[in-house]
């Protein structure tokens, strides 16, 4: 299920209530799996802060690929059925196994995926039993995770989500951000959610194996009891936050539960991406088995259809997709048409290509700072800054998205450090960027007009300019002619080459101050010189955080935020 931004904290509270020891349960641990990129690392740090604060045990692991994800989960034996089936097939033991399993406080009750997994069909891969063929003998392999025991929370900036994850009930929770800023840029097909067209899908259930379904159903029955609470919790919130004019939230929730299995199977058939054979099957199979299934699922039909309409209806207002009213017109639409319609929408959803939403570090920070109690913690904000910057550097964020996030981060900075130093800085930044050095310890400071040279503070100016992708490509510094131009440029700026080749930290302060003004001036000058014309040394809004550390281990953090309308120089 999708958890919209307003409700993120509910997901977190769910984790807490699952994992915190109580009178009835011994609690459990959280397993955080982290994609190896800087953004996810920052998110992991932020999240682990919250867990430490709430005294929730957690373990953190990197996870570089989907096979690895399954391997890790398998090795941890998160599903008690796994062990059972390995030993002997004794079904009566099942309850006992589960109870034993729950009794241990080291049990992993929650798996959090950071920047990974959202695009894979986790419902099928993790929660449904599979079968393995060894030497021609098919043996059933129990699911990696048990529906009752483990929940998967996903924070992933990869889009589009696999629709199966979106509609898989409460076992897979996606912390979703996108109405937040993506809609404004038109970056997200708002239909993403309803494309699921869940309930239709329950009609055209897959031809696969019915046992699979039944297994799931039975496990579901068992889980109903358990999951009711949190379902209700989520449901309640939805109903309050979004106007649901119809049936009470509880009813909707139960209905949702019903459809889940159907949705899975269907999406599987339609959308399976990894396995070529099943994708191939896609075009032919849908209509006929769907009909038969439809009859089978007759008892459910009224409910589910209502629900489905609700879902497709919410296309217009993507936020309240979970509960809303069915339009009568669609009700009357033929099954086949609707089915086709749905298929088209799903196809469009996936075919529009993959992209990235806001960085997970930023999402995590938002969760902690705005919805939990960790409001003014500079370290966390710093990590969020790093995450956002990382996403930008690696082209996961475009400029406008970056600008928005940077501005929001800047607001946070000002909230946390409302001191005069910050104000002063903003006043003087254009005159003297080095004012940041005057700020207090442990501070994040924003600054305008940061030069976008590669690791400027850790190399020489000359090298930083050469290594900067912008400058390098624009001035063709990889050619000798380009280098010559660069030297000319520096000369005309009045910066001696010997100084430029010094480590930047040792450059004369006067020259450093001069540098920025000169760059500003020369950008206009450059217009006359061919190939300098759109030289963009300043970036539109580029956020850098300064994070100096003092010998006494107090430190100062500064976010540097700078604006410059570079595009205007080259109309």
């Amino acid at each position, binding site marked *: 299920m999708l958890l919209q931004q307003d409700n993120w904290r509910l997901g977190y509270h769910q984790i807490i209530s699952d994992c915190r020891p109580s009178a009835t349960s011994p609690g459990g641990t959280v397993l955080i799996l982290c994609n*190896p*990129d*800087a953004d996810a*690392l*920052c998110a992991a*740090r932020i999240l682990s802060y919250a867990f430490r604060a709430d005294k929730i045990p957690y373990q953190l*692991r*990197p996870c*570089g*690929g*989907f*096979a*690895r994800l399954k*391997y890790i989960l398998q*090795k941890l034996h998160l599903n008690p059925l796994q062990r059972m089936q390995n030993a002997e097939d004794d079904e009566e033991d099942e309850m006992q196994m589960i109870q034993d399993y729950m009794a241990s406080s080291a049990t992993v009750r929650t798996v959090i995926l950071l920047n*990974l*997994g959202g*695009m894979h069909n986790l419902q099928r891969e993790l929660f449904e039993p599979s079968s393995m063929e060894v030497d021609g003998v098919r043996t059933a392999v129990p699911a990696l995770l048990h529906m009752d025991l483990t929940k998967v929370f996903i924070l992933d900036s*990869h889009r589009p989500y696999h629709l199966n994850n979106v509609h898989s009930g409460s076992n897979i929770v996606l912390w979703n951000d996108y109405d937040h800023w993506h809609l404004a840029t038109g*970056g997200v097909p708002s239909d993403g959610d309803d494309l699921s067209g869940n309930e239709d899908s329950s009609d055209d259930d897959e031809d696969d194996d019915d046992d699979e379904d039944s297994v799931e159903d039975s496990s579901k029955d068992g889980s109903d009891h358990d999951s009711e609470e949190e379902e209700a919790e989520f449901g309640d919130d939805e109903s309050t936050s979004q106007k649901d004019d119809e049936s009470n939230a509880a009813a909707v929730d139960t209905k949702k539960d019903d459809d889940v299995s159907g949705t899975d199977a269907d999406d599987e058939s339609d959308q399976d*991406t990894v396995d*070529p054979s099943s*994708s*191939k099957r896609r075009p032919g199979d849908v209509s006929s088995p769907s009909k038969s299934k439809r009859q089978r699922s007759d008892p459910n039909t009224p409910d589910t259809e209502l629900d489905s309409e609700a879902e497709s209806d919410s296309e217009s207002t993507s936020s309240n997709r979970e509960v809303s009213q069915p339009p009568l017109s669609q009700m009357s639409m033929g099954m086949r048409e609707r089915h086709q319609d749905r298929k088209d929408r799903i196809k469009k959803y*996936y*075919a*529009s*290509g*993959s*992209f990235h939403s806001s960085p997970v570090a930023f999402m995590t920070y938002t969760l902690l700072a705005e919805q939990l109690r960790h409001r003014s913690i500079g370290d966390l904000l*710093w*990590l969020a800054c*790093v995450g956002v*910057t*990382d996403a930008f*550097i690696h082209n996961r964020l475009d*400029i406008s998205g970056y600008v928005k996030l940077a501005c929001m981060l800047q607001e946070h900075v000002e909230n946390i450090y409302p001191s005069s130093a910050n104000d002063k800085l903003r006043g003087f930044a254009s005159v003297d960027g080095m004012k*940041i050095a005057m700020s207090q310890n442990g501070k994040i400071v924003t600054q305008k007009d940061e030069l976008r040279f*590669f*690791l400027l*503070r850790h190399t020489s100016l000359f090298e930083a300019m050469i*290594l900067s*992708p*912008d400058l*390098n*490509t624009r001035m063709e510094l*990889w050619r000798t002619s380009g280098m010559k131009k660069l030297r000319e440029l520096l000369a005309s700026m009045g910066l001696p080459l010997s100084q430029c080749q010094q*480590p930047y930290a040792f450059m004369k302060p006067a020259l450093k101050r001069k540098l920025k003004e000169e760059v500003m001036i020369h950008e206009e000058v450059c217009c006359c010189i061919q190939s300098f014309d759109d030289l963009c040394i300043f970036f539109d809004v580029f*956020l*850098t955080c*300064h*994070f*100096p*550390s003092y*010998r006494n*281990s107090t*430190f*100062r*953090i*500064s976010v540097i935020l700078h604006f410059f309308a570079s595009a205007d120089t080259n109309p």
Partner: protein
Amino acid sequence: MISASDVSHAVTALLECDVRSSGTNTQQNDHTLGQEDISPFLDEEEDEERALVESFNVAYDALNPNGSTSLSFGGNFGGDHEDGDFSTIVNGGDSAGSGLGSGIRLAIAMQKAVISTAVSLVERKAINRLSHFRYAYLNATSNGANGSNQYSNESSKEKQMHIFAKPLALTRLAHFLMDMHRANEKWTGARALPLVLLAEKPQTQSYLIAGFEFPETQGSMVKNEFKQRFENAAISMDGHIKFDSFDSNIVEVKSELANRFIESLHYLIDSS
């Protein structure tokens, strides 16, 4: 003083560089994974996995805002300790003690490798153009030739990981190439085509293949459609393709199949 972009570059470099190529901490390696029994998987993958855990830990520690958990091998692998250490002197000494300082030096080396590799690709005219996309091979043997092995040549050749066999490094290279050609206006208009890079992974004898859309203006984003394209190509080849990455535009293909993969990719896009 450290800026967020510095940290990002450094952490990325730490993540993607084989920490053990410095040869300093093999014992530590066993130690970190010791508690869990990892039964023999595939040897290379296991090795890769350990390397990942290793560099992950280093990178994670480097992110520590307190900078106090310095790791013993902090300065060991980006070259000389004395060389790049001016940041230490000036900034109070913490950053070089932690992994961050070495990460920054690694990042500089990486960036140089990116640029030199990109330049060598262009000068050797190694980027081939098909009617729907461009592609280029990055072979590990060309590693030495283009000067990209500044820090990895200490390890033996067969152990060596091609630095661009890591998704983030490959992404950076791709974007540098695209920036380059956007700036000199060679890839504009009708010649603006997506770019596919194939980076050899000598260890597993496969290629990491990544597809990138070519945005016409810098800093904008185009939705990446390579997921579907790769999938279709894989289907047409009866699927010997690993769709393992969480980035949908990256697949791994056995070396002998790489060429066919590109071919079928071409024909599929052509026919669609």
